[in-house]
């Protein structure tokens, strides 16, 4: 339900912004899920089975990502392998450089 509500919110936001896409539907869903399970848990309305059901699906996510990866058009993307490597590594190096800066900033 959170998923559908979130997706709807995402689509609505997309329409509002005039973009033909689901802007952040997954993000909204996640927030909704967190808020509602928290709320339900506090009031004792979250049955163990429901909780475990959600846990099952969260554990399924890596296998699903594997299946998703296996259905992409990698053959066409293959020539871009080097670029993918650079895009994976260079921004990450920037991130590493940010850490000492961030830590100093927070210590103030």
């Amino acid at each position: 339900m959170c998923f559908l509500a979130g997706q709807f919110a995402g689509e609505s936001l997309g329409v509002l912004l005039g973009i033909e896409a689901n802007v952040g539907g997954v993000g909204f869903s996640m927030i909704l899920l967190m808020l509602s399970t928290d709320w339900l848990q506090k009031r004792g309305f979250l049955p163990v089975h429901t909780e475990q059901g959600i846990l099952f699906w969260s554990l399924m996510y890596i296998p699903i990502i594997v299946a998703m990866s296996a259905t992409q058009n990698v053959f066409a993307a293959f020539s871009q392998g080097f670029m993918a490597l650079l895009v994976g590594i260079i921004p990450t190096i920037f991130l590493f450089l940010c850490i000492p800066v961030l830590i100093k900033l927070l210590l103030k």
Partner: protein
Amino acid sequence: MSVNALIVAFLLVAIITWLSSFISLKILKGRVPGAAIAIITGLVLAFFGGKWTGGNKGISDVPGLAGFALLGSGMLRDFAVVATAMGSSLKEMKKTGWIGLISLLMGVFVSFFPAVIIAYAFGYRDVVSLTTIGAGSCTFIVGPVTGAAIGADSSVIAISIAVGVFKSVFVTIFTAPLAKWIGLDNPQSAMAYGGLMGTTSGVTAGLAATDPKLVPYGAMTSTFATGVGCLLCPSICFFIMKLILGQ
């Protein structure tokens, strides 16, 4: 597509995931996360699927393996990704406080824009592809989720997955050696690290090799990173890209 096809896919993916976990722990001693190996295997399968069949849906074009298309479908994927949010709670979120928030935001933007610049340098010009590749530099989930949301081509989504996986492996390998140099020796810095780097598989593996006590702190923030990325990339980042490129 028969019901059996889905079961076949389940079985094969289970074997791949299990084997990857095994290779990661026993052979590589955790230097590469099991998830990364599994996903790379998926990409390799997709490559050969495309090579053998000439299709554009990876391994699912191979007769009998069409079940992969359903198991890896956008609907199931988004559903499972959203389910991972249940592990997080508001209490934990409040605990991370400002460190968490700032590191999460920085994590997205500091990855996204350099990534887009590199992609642009390699010839990508359209907003959708650039945003998707940029999103891939956040985590290997954010890339495909963003790509699917804004209508990217499958080959670009594949690239975004590869980008995220490379990042995850890089973070795993370099966390421990660089830890001292970047001040990664206490819970606060671990939380900042988790939010900044974003890739939960990379952060947990990297911290485990640095100081196992830091793992929960890093994971606390990195878990949110995928959610934040999925929220910001298809919306704000996409919007900013459209403004910059005038599309």
